């Protein structure tokens, strides 16, 4: 009698149990990794949320002729204007120390902001205006409830007197919170409230452009030669082994190489995206070569044979038939290599891209920094507000990484030839 429902025979009970056990272990592993990921992204997002909006403070500024010479508005003391405006709001503050605390409510950037407004709107001259200027990071943190007021005054960055003033300002509607575009449009700054990532972003973009321009053609050329033309001998084997090894070399070693050769020997400008890109190119080259070779290997040999049998020269066979089919895979490899380069910090530290850069670099020869280095710098800063900037910069970096991977996927989908 045949019974297909019987479980007892063929060791079936144990086999099914083992199968279930394995599946649950797999699900557990995925759940744990998702949990870690969620925790990491969640905590970064929570920290970064503080950067979305910034606090501004309204100052009544007297832009009369006594304070600003209309012939040369740039020469006026805007810092003094900010101070007098704050003094006028709280006339009963007389003590020198208290005055200083009062002035600290506005960002040191406030005077430059007023100067800019006057320059852009000369019709303001001679009038008295209520102008919104950036508040200090301590005020911003307090407004957002990030300051523990139950702590003794000496352990806080904001004093009792300052808290009292802020409360007055807030109840009179002189404090507002607006979208913080400065984070995306400003360069770095010592003042966390106005520090932005644009200079780092531009530095990263320049470095990556240099890296791509160098590593992609060289990498693909090397891969094509090694895969399609190089004679199979000891030397080729040696080169292959070494390329594979180079892919695993710690990136800081490439930084040291760049320091001694590009800066020390060739005398290229320190801290520049040119050198940064060159170092990153050294680092990504092995990855690109390996990816490009894998992509070439996956092209069916029948295309090559078909072309050669028609009388195509080896170079024609490769460039007309093998290369176009392999290109999407090469591009994917290149973009993944670039994404790796985008997140790289160590080699850039070695060649001086760790400098404090306020200006947005105009060319690949100017000093610049890069996104991951900026994150490193901010993470190192003592101001509480920089913690949030760090998290926000990490989010920006992650967004760019996701974008690059997305481009890689789209490119592959679009260019892929089916055969």
């Amino acid at each position: 009698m045949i019974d297909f429902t019987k479980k007892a025979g063929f060791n079936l009970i144990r086999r099914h149990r083992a199968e279930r056990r394995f599946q649950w272990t797999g699900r557990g592993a995925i759940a744990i990794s998702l949990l870690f990921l969620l925790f990491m992204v969640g905590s970064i997002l929570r920290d970064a949320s503080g950067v979305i909006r910034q606090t501004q403070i309204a100052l009544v500024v007297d832009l009369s002729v006594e304070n600003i010479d209309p012939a040369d508005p740039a020469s006026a003391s805007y810092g003094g204007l900010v101070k007098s405006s704050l003094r006028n709001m709280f006339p009963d503050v007389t003590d020198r120390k208290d005055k200083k605390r009062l002035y600290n409510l506005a960002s040191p950037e406030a005077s430059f902001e007023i100067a800019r407004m006057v320059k852009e709107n000369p019709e303001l001259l001679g009038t008295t205006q209520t102008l919104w200027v950036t508040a200090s990071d301590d005020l911003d943190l307090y407004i957002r409830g990030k300051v523990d007021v139950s702590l003794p005054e000496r352990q806080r960055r904001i004093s009792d007197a300052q808290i009292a003033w802020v409360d007055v300002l807030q109840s009179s509607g002189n404090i507002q919170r607006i979208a913080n575009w400065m984070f995306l449009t400003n360069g770095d700054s010592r003042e966390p409230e106005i520090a932005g990532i644009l200079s780092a972003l531009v530095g990263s973009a320049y470095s990556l452009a240099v890296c791509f321009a160098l590593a992609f053609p060289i990498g693909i050329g090397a891969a094509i030669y090694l895969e399609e033309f190089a004679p199979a001998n000891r030397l080729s084997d040696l080169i292959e082994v070494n390329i594979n090894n180079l892919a695993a070399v710690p990136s800081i070693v490439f930084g040291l190489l760049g320091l001694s050769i590009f800066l020390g020997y060739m005398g290229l400008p320190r801290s520049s995206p040119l050198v940064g890109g060159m170092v990153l190119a050294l680092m990504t080259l092995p990855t690109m070569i390996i990816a490009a070779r894998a992509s070439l290997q996956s092209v069916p040999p029948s295309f090559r044979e078909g072309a050669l049998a028609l009388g195509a020269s080896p170079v024609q066979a490769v460039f007309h038939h093998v290369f176009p089919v392999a290109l999407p895979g090469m591009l994917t490899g290149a973009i993944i290599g670039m994404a790796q380069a985008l997140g790289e910090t160590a080699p850039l530290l070695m060649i001086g891209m760790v400098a404090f850069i306020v200006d947005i670099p105009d060319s690949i020869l100017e000093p610049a920094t890069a996104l991951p280095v900026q994150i490193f710098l901010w993470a190192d800063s003592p101001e509480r507000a920089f913690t949030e900037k760090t998290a926000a910069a990490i989010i920006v970096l992650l967004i760019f990484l996701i974008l690059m991977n997305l481009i890689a996927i789209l490119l592959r989908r679009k260019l892929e030839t089916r055969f």
Partner: protein
Amino acid sequence: MADPIITARNVNIFYGAAQAIFDVDLDILPNKVTALIGPSGCGKSTFLRAINRMNDLIPICRIEGDLKIAGQDIYSPSVDVVALRAQVGMVFQKPNPFPKSIFENVAYGLKIHKLTSSKTELQDRVEWSLKSAGLWSEVADRLNQPGNSLSGGQQQRLCIARAIAVEPKVILMDEPCSALDPIATAVVEELIDNLRKDYTIVIVTHSMQQAARISQRTAFFHLGTLVEFGDTKTVFTTPADERTQNYITGRIG
């Protein structure tokens, strides 16, 4: 009888230390279909690929002896492999159209050899090649579609059209029907018979019926040696060698 177009004398082929072909002497006559038959691993494909030097792609492959096409030693250092292959075309076991359009597949050889001087001439030659391969009526309205959108049999005829577009003297076929169904096979076989008028065809086949149907001359290879070579009828009806007899009656192979 016409003079042979391909003459092989004492041809030995080695893969590294292993010898695949032993002292083969073979004369291939023009405008005839010559079938190379034999059990797997007997060296018939190796010999075929030696005729247009496709074996050069295998680094460990080495050939000794004398292999002449139209009186020229094709392994002499002065021979340009590209020129040789332009005149000795090849069709492979598995259809391998390029991942390009049908038109581009046929036009490719013409383009790289600059055989046409104008666009209309190129189009005419492509049309002529597809007609010669009996494919024109099936693809005339979709020349811009990818070559691999065709059926297996159509793809193989596309590969034949691609090979004849450059008007070679000799066409080598390495089991061209082994990946095709019987109906597609019949179409390709008929095509081969038609092509015989203009080309010399050397075909490797596993199917003895196919060899009997389409070839005029048959060479039987066994373990790397040429056992028997002669008119197809003679080889199949009154084989001189016992091994040939055993193979065609199905006792070995």
